[in-house]
């Protein structure tokens, strides 16, 4: 006895849906990394992720000084692709065609 194509495809859809449900369950039940007293972040007082190690302002974006993108000259662009993937801070976003720096509007 051969399986009807419709039953085969519906069964396949059901299997894939169950697998997706299992993936969701797996993600839901996976324990979140627990921070404990011995965690290096707490012990060493770390403040940044060690993801991008090519420059100091990509290794420690939160600790970099405010002028890092312009460290060579005032309109200098970033040297590293990582820098260009990190967005400008909120207060430097273009507003109404003018750059505003902490509320001070500049042409």
């Amino acid at each position, binding site marked *: 006895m051969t399986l009807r194509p419709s039953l085969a495809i519906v069964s396949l859809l059901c299997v894939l849906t169950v697998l997706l449900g299992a993936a969701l369950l797996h*993600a839901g039940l996976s324990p979140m990394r627990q921070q404990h007293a011995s965690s290096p972040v707490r012990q060493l007082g770390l403040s940044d992720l060690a993801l991008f190690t090519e420059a100091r302002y990509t290794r420690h974006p939160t600790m970099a000084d405010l002028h890092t993108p312009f460290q060579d000259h005032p309109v200098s662009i970033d040297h*590293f692709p990582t820098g260009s993937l990190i967005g400008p801070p909120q207060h430097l976003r273009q507003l109404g065609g003018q750059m505003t720096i902490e509320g001070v509007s500049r042409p």
Partner: protein
Amino acid sequence: MTHSPLRRQLNLIDFTLAAMRRRLGRNAILFVVYVLVIFLLASVMFFSHAIRREASVMLADAPEITIQHLVMGRHDLVPLSYLDKIGKIRGVRSAEGRLWGYYYDRGTKANYTLMVPGKNATNLKLEEGQTILGEGVARLRKAQKGRILALSSPTGKPLVMRIKDILTSDSALVTSDLVLVSEADFRKFFNLPQDVYTDLVLSVRNQREVATIVGKVSYRLPDARIVTRSDVLRTYEAIFSWREGLLLALLGTSIIAFTIFVFDKASGLSGEERREIGILKAIGWDTGDILAMKVWEAALLSGLSFLTGTLTAYAHVFLFDAGLLKPVLQGWGVLYPDFTLPPAIDGLQLATLAFFTIVPFTAATIVPIWRAAITDPEQVMR
């Protein structure tokens, strides 16, 4: 029994599958492209969500307040006298100087972060001549516990240390490039005076007082830059949101191409399909049956593509460590942490992806079919 709604739908699916088999090439290409687009979108979504969550969990213990000394807009070393000025502020539980700096290793062409474990680092205490390495440094230098590590210092003298331990890969996301050294070795290595630190960290008694303490510190130390823990968390949230957006924007062109491709395939009826609809109408099928058949065709194709694409994306990100996305994230850094992200899925994101991939495709097929199905069979077949 033979006319039950379920059996009727199964018959319709059988007929639909037979019709799809006749256009196997077209449907196979559509399926592969569909799966690929969903795989890419879902991979970016899963990865961004998981790393955002991981960053927020990991950095939840970051210092509450960090104080840097700025001179002409650039970092400068913090004098010891700053500790006395801020230590007396009400609400500050402890104030400590941190010693850390960068070191470019010519041998491996990688940047390391040299750091001195503070008073709280009870498990990471070091004596002079000892070091603890991050997973990435140990990997690059092929270093092992108990062996010797030599770094040539900026003063020209080599610093030779015995490797006390290697940090586990569990914490690689924050410690991969660390070289922990004793305070004496650090000061000797960088030729630093005794009374300076890289920056200061404060812990506060009451979280609600952070803003007040920041205000007092900035009043007492006008040349200081203050970074709070919420600034750190907000920065990483923004970085990964930006990165996700940028990746999705890069994928945007392929998504637009796919949308045009799908819309063209789904909304335009070929002559063969028109003839098929005409014949079905002529032999007695009603408009509802023809619509149901085409909806099944679109739903099966998009549903299968969505499930296959999502599941392969899940496996890619959480079982194979997002190997295809890593080159994008890696940038120009030689030293990249070897880490595994704990699985995390944002249900709303997944539902949005499902909605925007299955519904428009299914809907796009209905209008032209409905137009053809309500037309006179003789006219359709012409």
